[in-house]
């Protein structure tokens, strides 16, 4: 079995700060991490490898430092890693990214046929959830998103059955390999890397492909040029002019403050009181 897992290296958004004057992102010193959603897909891929044997190849489109993210995945047990990196890819939106990654997967498949492609559900810096579906469409792979559980994989019959999270319930879908899967978060727990795997990963020669090596055929489809969406401006949220009306506890009793607050709320929102009373009515 040969599985390709696509990841993205993202800034740890929990640590990002906004420059108070220029409203730009202060990235210095913010550590880069593997997009957390991708790790659920990675773990699922490794479990399939544990069961069926075979190989897991990591794929990432990013700047040179994304190598570290790929190495981390080798530490968890992936067998090989490819970084598709080239200035020409800069500024890519999701359409251009799926084009580049699809080319990368095809290139990897030329060496050894690919059975499943995993991507993360979405990234924490983009949140679009579009790249997975985009790759599937471009490669003609069956698409299975929001997968909560892989029920059965039949390598003989070349089929896979999954549970997929939908509104109000779970769909049970069966499709043919090769397919593309995005895993839902918290569907599995990532294993701990062993020391030998980490040492192996620390020195692992990540393969680096520029646009030619990645098999990009149409340069107009990558990077800024291949991106239909344009960011026209970035701005800080407008501060509300009206701040909260504060009710002080020092001068009045807690009870008085509570009653006062109730009065204010109901005066401000007249229908609310009626709604609440209706719920109370026997």
């Amino acid at each position, binding site marked *: 079995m040969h599985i390709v897992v696509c990841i993205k290296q993202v800034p740890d958004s929990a640590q990002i700060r906004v420059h108070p004057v220029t409203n730009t992102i202060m990235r210095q010193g913010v550590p880069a991490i593997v997009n957390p959603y991708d790790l659920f897909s990675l773990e699922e891929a490794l479990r399939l490898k544990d069961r069926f044997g075979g190989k897991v190849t990591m794929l990432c489109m990013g700047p040179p430092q994304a190598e570290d993210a790929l190495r981390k995945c080798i530490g968890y047990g992936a067998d090989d890693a490819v970084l598709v990196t080239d200035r020409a890819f800069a500024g890519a939106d999701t359409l251009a990214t799926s084009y580049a990654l699809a080319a990368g997967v095809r290139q990897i498949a030329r060496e050894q046929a690919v059975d499943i492609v995993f991507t993360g559900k979405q990234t924490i810096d983009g949140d*679009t959830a579009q790249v997975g579906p985009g790759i599937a469409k*471009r490669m003609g792979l069956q698409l299975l998103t929001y997968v909560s559980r892989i029920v059965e994989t039949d390598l003989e019959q070349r089929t896979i059955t999954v549970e997929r999270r939908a509104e109000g319930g779970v769909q049970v879908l069966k499709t043919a390999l090769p397919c593309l899967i995005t895993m839902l978060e918290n569907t599995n727990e990532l294993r701990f890397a062993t020391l030998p795997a980490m040492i192996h990963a620390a020195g692992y020669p990540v393969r680096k492909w520029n646009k030619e090596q990645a098999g990009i055929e149409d340069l107009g489809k990558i990077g800024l040029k291949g991106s239909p969406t344009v960011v026209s401006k970035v701005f800080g949220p407008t501060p509300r002019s009206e701040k909260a009306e504060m009710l002080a506890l020092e001068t009045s009793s807690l009870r008085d403050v509570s009653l006062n607050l109730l009065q204010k709320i109901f005066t401000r929102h007249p229908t609310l009181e009626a709604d609440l009373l209706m719920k109370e009515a026997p």
Partner: protein
Amino acid sequence: MNAPTPAATPATPATPAAKKPAGRAGRNLELPEHLKAYKGVWVFLEHERGQVHTVSWELLGEARKLADTLGSAVSVVVLGGPAEPLEQFAAQAFTYGADKAYVVHDAVLQGYRNEPFTKGLTDLVNKYQPEILLLGATSMGRDLAGSVATTLLTGLTADCTELNIDPVSRALAATRPTFGGSLLCTIMTLAYRPQMATVRPRVMAMPQAQAGRGGEIMQETLGMVESAIVTKLLDFIADASSNKINLPYADVIVSGGKGLKNPENFKLVFELARVLGGEVGATRPCVQAGWVEAERQVGQTGKTVRPKLYIAAGISGAIQHRVGMESADVIVAINTDPNAPIFDFAHYGIVGNALQVLPALTQAFAEHLSRGGRHAA
């Protein structure tokens, strides 16, 4: 190239010299001629087991505003199985502002699957050429939107919080949070059509229904056979409906944050919510610490809510939480820190310990409501 016009009208070039803003060399920001014919604002109607997802109505409200600005029409696309009440959904859509509905009944469209739905929607888009296509950012919507956008090779902006028409270009200006929510950005698809966008449930307001408003239904066909579709839908397992937490649609929400200090104190939140007949929400740190279920998380990576009353206890008001609840009609914040950001956008604030304020509020509300309100005799 354009031939010179007759002397009657002054000769003007058909396409003005392409304006290339600095730093965007090589990008096509001009809408090609053949795409200028794309008109109309479309909404994909998502439905499941006899009900249209309310996000579709919320989108319809927005679509109506956009279409009015553009001077064009609103249409909805409804795909489903042979016996599903798609025409009823269309009729509802008309009351929410749609002018037209493209309906496709087909056995392969019974239950959502990526392949037939992608074909259904893209075929209709290619046939009728809308300039804007909106979908809800749900499990179905995101699955479908990505496939459709890649098939049509057009731009898709996800999880938008605001949709406007840019007065100069008449293009869709889609605003969404970026970098973990610390900033906002406005994204446009200038040279491709349709301009696609997804919006999360509850981000836009529910529009008012105009009873009696009608529209035109166009019956369309899919042209796909089951045997050609590789993915099979074997089953649908509904979630257990008892004790379902319905945060996004709650009118009253009482939320707790890490300021409550420990999970036991959440019972004070539950108590106030009970008296108010409301739901209980929480911040992401509380969910991650295992204090409450993940379904209760309000915020950028949780649920977006639009209650009439939102009471935030022990919540600092960081931007990631804020974007999930700032549309509430009345926001009350309780926090021991007078500098907590939540006081910047709450309507009412109390600097105090939630562990004391919550019980006091619970009692005040209980008495007030049992007495029959302010106007009781």
